[in-house]
């Protein structure tokens, strides 16, 4: 498997250096640490983020370093947490909220949709919401029900929100810093299955711009469009596809909103074929938007319909059955095989 950690060129690691080989969880931790140190308006709120350091240890040590007024354990009430953060943002702070798991962000849905997303617009810019809402999402960790939802489509459909999801440690660091620096609310989706995957980060690099996809692997045959937890499996599939003679390009969206139309379409126009891959249930999922806009914008370049490999339209399965639900290499390759290769020369573009 082409692990996400292998993507960057490896440099010698040294604790004091800006370059570090770290887990995604640690990359996020460092991003929070640097954001807290760099801007005293940054405040972290959430359940168990203080003394415990969060159930995924993303906030480990931060309360000790910055004190509980900067890193605050809240009562157990997600609407209250997000609503409190809205008020803090109204006063000019930059709250970073942690939701403990994807499904436990739902109680805050009204605050998110009706206030976080709309406050700037409502007030013609007078009350911006420079909020970051961190949500661990996705499956593959054997979690019981409500611990593995991929809820991105609820957020991508909500105007006023940015929706960002890293797939590498470097992006986890860079995108989280960029999210916190953004003057708009960012739903920051952390692929919990990748928390312990490793990669190199550079704490001194310029912050990435939100809204740019990245090509993780080039190839002329077809484009796999994916993000977050599904990137490693897409890269693995691309590797395996070579045996079948397909040279797949892999695009990591990173930012779902704003969407990188230019980047995605450039790839699909090159390859003429596309498969969208994500964990969430497919129906009305984010992949539908990707497929619809790619079909619309690249219509004459398409040799085959844009296909989707997604979770089934079922409640997230219990731990022992989740592997049947999640996109895997075989299902991706089966789908690539359905891209009507008989109609044209493989990998051909129009």
């Amino acid at each position, binding site marked *: 498997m082409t692990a996400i950690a292998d993507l960057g060129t490896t440099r010698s690691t040294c604790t004091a250096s800006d370059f570090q080989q770290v887990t995604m969880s640690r990359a996020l931790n460092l991003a929070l640490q640097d954001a807290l140190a760099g801007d005293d308006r940054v*405040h972290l709120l959430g359940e168990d983020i203080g003394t415990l350091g969060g159930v995924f240890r993303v906030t480990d040590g931060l309360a000790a370093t910055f004190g509980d*007024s900067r890193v605050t354990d*809240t*009562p157990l*009430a997600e*609407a*209250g947490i*997000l*609503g*409190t*953060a*809205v*008020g*803090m*943002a*109204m*006063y*000019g*702070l930059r*709250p970073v909220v942690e939701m403990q798991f994807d499904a436990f962000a739902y*109680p805050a849905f*009204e*605050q998110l949709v*009706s*206030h976080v997303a*709309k*406050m*700037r*617009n*409502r*007030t*013609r*810019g*007078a*009350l*911006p919401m420079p909020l970051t809402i961190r949500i661990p999402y996705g499956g593959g960790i054997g979690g019981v029900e409500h611990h593995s939802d991929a809820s991105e489509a609820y957020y991508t459909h909500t*105007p*006023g929100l*940015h929706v960002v999801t890293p797939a590498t440690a470097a992006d986890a660091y860079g995108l989280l810093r960029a999210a916190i620096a*953004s*003057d*708009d609310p960012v739903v920051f989706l952390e692929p919990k299955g990748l928390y312990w995957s490793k990669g190199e980060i550079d704490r001194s690099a310029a912050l990435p711009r939100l*809204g740019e996809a990245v090509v993780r692997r080039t190839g002329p045959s077809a484009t796999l469009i994916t993000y977050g937890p599904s990137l490693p499996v897409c890269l693995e599939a691309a590797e395996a596809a070579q045996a079948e003679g397909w040279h797949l390009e892999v695009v990591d969206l990173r930012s779902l*909103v*704003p*969407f990188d*139309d*230019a980047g995605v379409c450039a790839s699909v126009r090159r390859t003429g074929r596309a498969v969208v891959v994500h964990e969430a249930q497919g129906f009305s999922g984010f992949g539908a938007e990707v497929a619809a806009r790619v079909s619309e914008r690249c219509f004459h370049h398409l040799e085959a319909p844009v296909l989707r490999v997604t979770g089934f339209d079922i409640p997230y399965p219990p731990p022992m059955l989740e592997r049947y639900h999640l996109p895997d290499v075989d299902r991706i390759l089966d789908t690539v095989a359905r891209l009507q290769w008989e109609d044209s020369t493989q990998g051909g573009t129009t």
Partner: protein
Amino acid sequence: MTVLYPPSAGEDSGTVLLPSSEPLSLIDAASGTESLDASVLLELYRHLVRGRRFNQQATALTKQGRLAVYPSTTGQEASEVGAVLALDPQDWLIPTYRDTLALLVRGVDPVDALTLLRGDWHSGYDPLTHRTAPLSTPLATQTPHAVGLAHAAALRGDKLVVLAMIGDGGTSEGDFHEAMNFAAVYRSPVVFLVQNNGYAISVPISKQSAAPSLAHKAIGYGMPGVLVDGNDAAAVYHEVRQAVERAREGGGPTLIEALTYRIDAHTNADDATRYRDTAEVEFWLQRDPVTRMERHLRGRGLLDDAEVARIRQEAEDMAQDLRSRLATDPSPVALDLFDHVYAHRTPQLEEQRSLLAEELAAAQSVHADGAEEVRR
């Protein structure tokens, strides 16, 4: 090691937080309010008269189609006015959807205060200038904002207090509970003012809560609860002021229930006769907050006919000004729809904005041609 819980809760730990058993401190018999300056009472009165006139005028404007809708606070002016006047300029007001009058008391221009209800934008005043949040339509959702704002100010060392307003119905929402709890745990400088006007649209308080009073809810969070006569502006002012001062000194939040009544229908679109009888309304008209204050002030020799006439004229002028300024429809700019969704327009919004701009240009040129509207 302190594992015993509640650590310091003695026999009376709950009882002391209960609202007084004599909650209705009628203005004429009020103890605390007696101590209020005459100037404060007169200021309250002035705002009551102005507020009543505003309510009448805004309701009239709905009939003329100048406002999309207006939720009146006729009958509730004492609570709106008394509570807001108790704030200092550096304090913040977090209103709920009915509180247009509170905005006025806070100094918002009446036309700007009505933007939401007129329909040209969602909110029409600068929240930072007025230290006043936009009117919150989703009920109770504003209460955690109040806590967050107060918490933020406290973290920054700024001694300001936040007044969060909500209706009786709104207290049933989970967000109210969460906000009360956060405020109590953080000892945030927030005053929660519940205007219990007897109804949530058509639903009477008896179907909304089985508590002895809504003020009793305070005890479950560990904060003081106060039940006050919401038709007595002086009493409301006094109680809110006390809570504000306690909060400012680090004493934490307070829940105040102001018992009042909504004389008008829920909004101009509502038919209140479907769910309540006129006798009930009559009863409350007897306790009219404007009349009561006037009677009280006259009785104490603080107000004479001339002053009443002057204040009424001032209110009349405001109404006249409002009428004329709302006489023409505003012309909100369609392309503004794309300008405040984000700090910078996304590529997608750029595209959509161009589409609308083209449509508008096409319609414009058709219009300029003087032609019948045809397909663009």
